[in-house]
């Protein structure tokens, strides 16, 4: 029944009930009709027979009552033929009446005196039945007959008073009877009439059932059409067309009508809700876009600001450096004191330039407006470059710069910035180490990071160890603060005071860690880690970010 719709179910159910009802009613009415028809027929035949007996009582009195034996009849003493003829004519009169198929007249002794229309084999039969009784007989051909047997009484209202006077009427009316009457009704005729009535009845029932089924179909349509449409519209609403409403059945005053109206109200609410939501989302999106635009604009302005500051500082510094240089290069010999002053101007110009660069880089890192260029990077290569770059500087102090235990370690990083971090750490180590000492650089793999050696996943570890004076315990965590070391370093050691602060910002941007370990008097070791490019993050395309 899954594929059968509500409409079909309703109609089928109604039709089944109606057909069963129709069958029951028809069956009952047809059986009742048979009983009624039989009753009607019997009454009618009886009435006709009675009437007929009343009308012809004289003839019966005259001709039937006389007991005539064979001898008498044959002797011709009585005009038997004439009597016979009269009785026969009278019998035919009755036979012509409605229902009646045959009539048989018998005398008191049961001899057949006259008949009209009976089948031959039914004429001579012994009398068994009582008066007024109905029986059924069958002739040789197989035709059935209902037969009424009646006594023809001598007295009755039908006899005229003068005749009664003539015949004296000495016997009591109840006891006196003239003969017997057998009236036959063709069973086939009865059945045919019954069939006609029954057929009419069945036909009417069939028409009524058909009409009822049709009506139920129409009613089912009234119920089902709005529901079907509701289903269709619900699908369309689910697909996003929220303007759809059910039109069929909205005016119905029943449960279906209420359902349709409630459905439409609900659809309206959903539509309103959605428009409200959409509006809200649009508003939020606009707000976010605006905020984002503002942020971008702020970042752009910050970036431009840093660039402009850089430009504004560098322009006068360029002039200073060029003029000092020109003076130094001038052909005329200058006093030594002047030459030395010009050299200091030149050196300090360079230092100021570096300081400005570092301050502005620090600012860029803090403002997060650095133009990162992330790439798949081999740290080993960067460490090697740094040692090569700084070897001359180390050589000046006869420091052995040893880069041992270097392994290829691939990280996702901005190579220029990481290069700066390594340069800074090695540069510091050289600066703080004494003449003829040693600086060791190593590159390895680790899974712990920080002063407490916490778990950090697979990382590359860069280690730079010097043999300088070391850093007091309380300063170890503060060396990465801007300008912190500047206060403590020997006056001869040049630096901007921002190197470690910048390094910390850069490493933390790369999700790595930077820390220092030291014991006063026996040198310091600086470490930093960077997450390794592993098989899990190798799949990602290496994007060079803007």
């Amino acid at each position, binding site marked *: 029944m899954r594929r059968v719709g509500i409409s079909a179910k309703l109609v089928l159910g109604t039709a089944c009930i109606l057909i069963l009802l129709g069958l029951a009613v028809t069956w009952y009415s047809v059986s009742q009709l048979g009983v009624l028809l039989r009753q009607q027929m019997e009454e009618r035949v009886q009435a006709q027979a009675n009437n007929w007996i009343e009308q012809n009582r004289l003839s019966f009195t005259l001709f039937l009552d006389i007991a005539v034996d064979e001898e008498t009849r044959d002797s011709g003493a009585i005009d038997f033929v004439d009597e016979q003829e009269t009785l026969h004519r009278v019998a035919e009169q009755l036979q012509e009446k409605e229902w009646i198929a045959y009539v048989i007249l018998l005398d008191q002794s049961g001899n057949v005196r006259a008949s009209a229309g009976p089948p031959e084999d039914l004429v001579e039969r012994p009398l068994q039945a009582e008066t007024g009784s109905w029986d059924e007989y069958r002739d040789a051909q197989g035709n059935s007959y209902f037969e009424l047997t009646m006594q023809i009484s001598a007295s009755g209202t039908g006899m005229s008073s003068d005749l009664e006077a003539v015949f004296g009427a000495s016997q009591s009316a109840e006891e006196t009877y003239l003969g017997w009457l057998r009236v036959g009704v063709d069973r086939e005729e009865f059945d045919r009439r019954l069939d006609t009535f029954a057929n009419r009845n069945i036909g009417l029932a069939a028409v009524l059932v058909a009409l009822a089924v049709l009506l139920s179909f129409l009613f089912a349509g009234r119920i089902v059409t709005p529901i079907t449409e509701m289903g269709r519209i619900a699908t369309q609403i689910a697909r996003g067309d929220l303007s759809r409403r059910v039109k069929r059945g909205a005016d119905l005053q029943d449960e279906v009508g209420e359902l349709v109206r409630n459905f439409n109200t609900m659809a309206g609410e959903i539509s309103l809700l959605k428009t409200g939501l959409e509006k809200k989302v649009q508003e939020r999106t606009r707000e976010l876009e605006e905020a984002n635009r503002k942020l971008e604009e702020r970042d752009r302005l910050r970036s431009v600001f840093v660039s402009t500051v850089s430009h504004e500082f560098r322009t006068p510094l360029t002039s200073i450096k*060029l003029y000092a240089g*020109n003076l130094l290069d001038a052909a005329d010999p200058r006093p030594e004191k002047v030459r030395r002053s010009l050299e200091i101007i030149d050196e300090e110009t360079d230092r100021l330039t570096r300081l400005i660069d570092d301050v502005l880089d620090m600012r860029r890192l803090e403002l997060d407006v650095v133009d990162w260029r992330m790439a798949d990077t081999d740290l080993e290569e960067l460490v090697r470059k740094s040692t090569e770059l700084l070897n001359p500087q180390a050589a000046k102090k006869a420091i052995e710069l040893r880069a041992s235990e270097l392994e290829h370690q691939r990280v996702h990083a901005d190579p220029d910035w990481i290069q700066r971090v390594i340069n800074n750490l090695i540069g510091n180590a050289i600066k703080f180490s004494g003449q003829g000492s040693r600086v060791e650089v190593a590159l390895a793999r680790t899974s712990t990071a920080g002063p407490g050696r916490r778990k950090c996943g697979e990382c590359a570890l860069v280690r730079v160890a010097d043999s300088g004076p070391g850093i007091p315990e309380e300063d170890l965590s503060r060396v990465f603060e801007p300008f912190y070391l500047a206060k403590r370093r020997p006056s001869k050691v040049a630096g901007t005071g921002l190197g470690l602060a910048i390094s910390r910002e850069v490493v933390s941007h790369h999700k790595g860690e930077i820390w220092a370990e030291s014991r006063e008097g026996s040198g310091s070791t600086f470490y930093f880690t960077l997450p390794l490019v592993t098989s899990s993050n190798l799949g990602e395309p290496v994007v060079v970010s803007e």
Partner: protein
Amino acid sequence: VPKKVLVADDEEYILDAIVEIIKQENFVTLTAANGAEALKLARTEVPDLLLLDIMMPEKSGFEVCRELKSDPATKGIYIILLTAMGQQRDEERGYESGADEYMTKPFSPRDLKNKLRELLG
């Protein structure tokens, strides 16, 4: 024939100092105080070398560089961009616009002299 060097910078002091350095090396110097002037002079004089500041009024060094390098008559001019911004992105933009070299301010007279001798000597 003495080699011609065009210097374009909107900073007067810097312009003068650079001119003095070039003169010491015995090259002919031409000067421009903004981008448009630099472009005009480069087209009429077709110098051997152009020292081109980036941040200039009228037209930026990048624009001047791009226009000169896209013109067959001037694309042979060797262009050194001078910048005071000192950021990697600016350097890349410089090469994108067709510059041959890039010098970051401040630089010393000696750096420039070495460069001149290397290119024109």
